[in-house]
């Protein structure tokens, strides 16, 4: 750490908090997306019969609903991240900037 400004920011507790929270949150959501998508692909590969099951007495199959659900899930997940980033993470960044300006 040659640069004193960098060192000051890196040692700031708010910076540590921000990075820790955001990194953790990002990886949790990444894990959720991977699990859901590869779970869906796994079902297609290993249990086609399950996905062919009808929902109630209708024509619509479980697989179709799950497929659309994967798409909707991906969108909701990005929404959750943006929601938290706009609130919590941006607030932490703003606090950090105030700290540094002092």
């Amino acid at each position, binding site marked *: 750490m040659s640069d004193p400004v960098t060192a000051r920011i890196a040692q700031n507790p708010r*910076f540590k908090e*921000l*990075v820790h929270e955001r990194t953790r949150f990002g990886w949790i959501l*990444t894990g959720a997306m991977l699990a859901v998508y590869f779970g869906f*692909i796994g079902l*297609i*590969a290993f249990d086609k019969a399950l996905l062919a099951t009808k929902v109630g007495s209708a024509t619509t199959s479980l697989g179709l609903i799950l497929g659309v659900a994967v798409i909707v899930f991906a*969108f909701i997940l990005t929404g959750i*991240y943006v929601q938290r980033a706009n609130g919590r993470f941006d607030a932490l960044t703003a606090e950090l*900037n105030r700290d540094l300006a002092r």
Partner: protein
Amino acid sequence: MAALAVSAAFAAGPDLGPIAQQATNWPAIGMFGFFVIFTLGITYKAAMGTKSASDFYAAGGGISAGTNSLAIAGDYMSAASFLGISGLVYTSGFDGLIYSTGFLVGWPIVLFLIAERLRNLGKFTFADVASFRLDQTSVRIISATGTLVVVAFYLIAQMVGAGKLIQLLFGLPYLYAVIIVGVLMIVYVAFGGMKATTWVQVIKACLLLGGATFMAGAVLFKYGFNPEALFSAAVATHPKGDAIMAPGGLVNNPIEAISLGMGLMFGTAGLPHILMRFFTVSDAQAARKSVFYATGLIGYFYILTFIIGFGGIALLMSDPVYFKLGPAGAFDKIKDMVGGTNMVAVNLANAVGGPYFLGFISAVAFATILAVVAGLTLAGASAVSHDLYASVIARGRTNEASEVRLSKISAVVIGIVAIYLGYVFENQNVAFMVGLAFSVAASCNFPVLTMSILWRGTTTWGALIGGFVGLFAAVGMVVLSKAVWVTTFGNPVAIFPYDNPALFSMPLAFLTIYVVSKLDNTARAKRERALFDAQFVRSETGIGASGAHAH
């Protein structure tokens, strides 16, 4: 991207090899002409406002999150994903959905791991980010090589697709299409830079989303807005019957399925023309919002194509007007569709909106290809001028004006090369090329980028060797796979047993970067690890990052 879907449609459907040129479609040509005149007007305006390198590469960093999300979605919704996926749904039903989900799920990963950091660290290309604390020359060589390889394969697939489509849609010869696309993309990119490329993409995204919404709406309207009624009608009409509601033959081998999924998912996060879009917004917040909106738009679009595919089954399959009739008026509901199953969406446009709506959808499909190749050309030209020329050849001894001039020349050269390749590959099987572009992006660009941002230990040697290992592994495995080794070279058996290499080539690249970096004990490596803190602080906070119009 869409050519992959088309490839699936090609593979799943009947032979669409020799496509017969259709009767000249004047309404479609007229509407396309209107689109061209309008976008050239925008290009002229953009060219007036494009002065600096920042204007040329990143539209001055002044694109809003909403506009950028439409441009990102536009880059991703190509003609073939529209025509190919709806055609795939028409032939196989549910299986079309497998591709739609695969293409979408990369976006959350882009958002969670790289979008904001990319904006905070970068300037014009993703090589700026990867070389932030690593050796400029080496990292730009690997990044630019990865970019150009991805752009080349993607462009070939798009050019050949454009040529085939124009025969079907406009009833004009193949070569006309390739030349029209090539010349227009040169004009957009060389004169209007990122501003024009972005706005062309935005307009096309609006037209495509609008047209697809109208079609899906018209289909649902016929079934009282009850999807269940649509599905029942489709099952009653389709020769495969109820099987279209369940997974079919597209994914039989789990390893193949996972490898395809990894390529689609992580390839998205390594496509250079998509990554460039994060530098056109003012800050990390805008980058984050653009991915959120874009994910929504793309997801919505894939749901529309699914409805359109089912609408095709329900409304077209029993109507002999849309088929080439055999003796006694008999026809195969899948094999004999006029123009092949890639024309489902176009034929459906005629069924629900008449010949002028058919013309509109045809024009939009062609405009879509044009916008996508313009984005690719800009990404390729930036890699040549900003990465290879300015940092590797001139080693910083150049100025903005000559760098931008070289970028414009590169755009012209790339355009001419693309026309030539489109001409050469006319009768080749290019269906595997978009899949290959995604695999290279996932196995070279994505590992180099993420490891340099996220792992302190990454050194120049690690990134350079790991990137090339990923690149050669992805290309090598595809060359040895069935699509090239057997189909193109005519060998009896494929050496590499899978069609999609990402499951093997991507971890190999990550592992190589890790091992080589660990073994790297040079003084430079020590310096690079020490510089990680400065990069880390900036990537997480944006402190020190250049804002809009600041560079």
